[in-house]
């Protein structure tokens, strides 16, 4: 359960998102809003990106999220996907996953992990050598997106905030994305918060709530999913 209260996000003293009181329990939640309103900002502020100042309170599974370091938030079960994940030279994809899993106390054998990793990469059409490739180095936008999905698979967080996971993916990959997200939610007790304007993805995931961020920096959450479909049909000004 992720609960924000009067949550405000600022960059260099300028308010981006204001006074948000929102609640995300197990299930699927969609976040929508015009370009530039701060959807990515919302995800990164929750993850503790040092570029953002925050006010108000955020409770994550009973813990005070805002007082925690980024790595502690990850260890508490929070995951966000990056739109443009950072390349790290000399660090292989699997070496990275191995380190992350150790940090998160995911106790599986390296052999098992490697075979799960390869399976996951294979599902996404990333080729058999993907585990040896350097993390986000010389990868296309689509490949980076897929790599974020593998991490979701492997790290298996309690709450995942996915920032436009469909962008840059072709139609086949989107199919797999939907399957993977569906499978993630079906594990039960998982919270999936997804930033997307992709009708098929939203329809298939059948969200429980929709949050609309507007240009004034306000957030409105509703269980009336029709709001989302209206936006998909008519746009934000419709």
């Amino acid at each position, binding site marked *: 359960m992720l609960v924000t209260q009067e949550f405000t996000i600022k960059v260099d003293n300028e308010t981006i998102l204001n006074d948000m009181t929102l609640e995300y329990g197990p299930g699927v939640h969609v976040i929508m809003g015009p370009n530039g309103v701060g959807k990515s900002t919302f995800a990164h502020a929750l993850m503790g990106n040092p570029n953002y100042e925050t006010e108000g309170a955020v409770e994550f599974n009973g813990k005070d999220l805002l007082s925690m*370091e980024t*790595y502690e938030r*990850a260890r508490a079960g929070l995951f966000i996907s990056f739109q443009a994940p950072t390349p790290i030279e000399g660090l292989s994809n699997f*070496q990275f996953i191995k380190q992350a899993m150790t940090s998160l106390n995911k106790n599986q054998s390296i052999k098992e992990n490697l075979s799960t990793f390869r399976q996951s990469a294979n599902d996404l059409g990333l080729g058999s050598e993907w585990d040896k490739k350097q993390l986000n180095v010389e990868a296309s936008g689509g490949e980076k997106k897929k790599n974020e999905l593998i*991490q979701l698979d492997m790290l298996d967080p309690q709450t995942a905030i996915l920032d436009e996971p469909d962008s840059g993916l072709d139609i086949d990959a989107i199919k797999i994305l939907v399957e993977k997200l569906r499978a993630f939610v079906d594990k039960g007790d998982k919270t999936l918060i997804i930033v997307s304007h992709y009708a098929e993805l939203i329809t298939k995931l059948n969200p429980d709530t929709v949050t609309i961020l507007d240009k004034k920096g306000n957030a409105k959450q509703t269980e009336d999913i029709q709001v989302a479909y209206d936006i998909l049909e008519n746009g934000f000004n419709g």
Partner: protein
Amino acid sequence: MTEVSKLADNKYTAGFSTQTDTEDFEPGLTEDIVKRLSAIKDEPEWVTEFRLKAFAHLQTIKEPTWAHVNYAPIDYQALSYYSAPKFRNKDEIPPEILETFDKLGVPLHERDALLGIETKDPNIIPTVAVDVVFDSVSIATTFQKELKKHGIIFCSISEAIQEHPELVKEYLGSVIPAKDNYFACLNSAVFTDGTFCYIPKGVKCPMELNTYFRINARNTGQFERTLIIADADSYVSYLEGCTAPAYDENTLHAAVVELVTHDRAEIKYSTVQNWYPGDENGVGGVLNFVTKRGLCKGESSKISWTQVETGSAVTWKYPSCILRGDNSVGEFYSVAVTKGKQMADTGTKMLHVGKNTKSTIISKGISFGDSSNTYRGQVRIGKKAHNSRNYTQCDSLMLDNSKAITIPVVSQHNNTSIVEHEASAGKLSEEALYYLQSRGLDEENAVSLVVNGFCKDVFQKLPLEFAAEANQLLNVTLEGAVG
């Protein structure tokens, strides 16, 4: 990662000292001291002459000041030039010295070998032979018998002077003359011990040769001298490691290493340098002034330097290659990490003399805290070095208030040759650290992954046996540097 966290409390794990009975010279640097040094080692006259000539020249020159390092003036008269543990022969090494190497983690089979156990199980084929130098003397050299079967000579330089004078006489000072520079000149006058290797024609050395240098005594300089000769069509991989106790005073270390390769021979020389770096305020630490040079004398010969430098308060070191033989190859791969108040000025010289000579330089500098890290390189393509090539890549990674300086000098005297240079300098990316932390890695761990990745090209060049050691050393170094 658990191993690293265990070490987190001890930033410099090799900083202890050993109590043992020693025979020392009183402080002072005089002609008489040089003569006594030569006498105590029972050296032939030509070695004494070599020393005295160097000593005379030393009186006429001054320490170089061009490097980007600062240190309090060295009082050469306040240092002792000889300190040796007391034992009559190599079967009687005092137990506290054996314990020292045990504590330093010189691998067990090597320690067994020091105890004279050699190989108990005939099925175990040793992969490393080691020469151990404690202050001014070599205390043991392992697997000499095994190596002798192949005609390989692996012993201390003092022993080589006695047993193989013709070889030492031919090569000593042939690559680095006594007058080369101040510290080489000082070393030529007062060198104490070090390693000698000779690989005969056509022999591929069946194991890694390793010298472990330990400074123990206070106020004593260590002046080791290493000479490695690879005769035609031979190959050897050699590694040196070094540590010293944490004393408040600076400790002077001025070594000379000379390598010679004949036709089609190859020497791969690796260094893991972990001398005491001083404390966080810059008190104490080893002053490391080292002259290392290899001569590719024969055609198609190759010399490859790989260094991982994490220690020393001040490092002044430029392992170089003279590519005299046609088609000869020189390589320099370096990782230099500085933190706290450390200062490193290191790099290489590639002097292309012969035709079709090739050189590669890959240098990775990482600096933390208030340290400074300078890459200084010179590539010289001589008039007759037709169709030669050099590729240089210098990358630096900075954190905190540290400084990274890159000084590459190229002089091209042959227009059929190609010199390429790539360089990058950057702060450690906050973004990368945030990304890794968002996956649960704490800051130290995140920095370690980024830095290890940055150094990977160089670490891959280390012999397998030592790559893990270098990696762990780097991680321990980072533990002390971050946060």
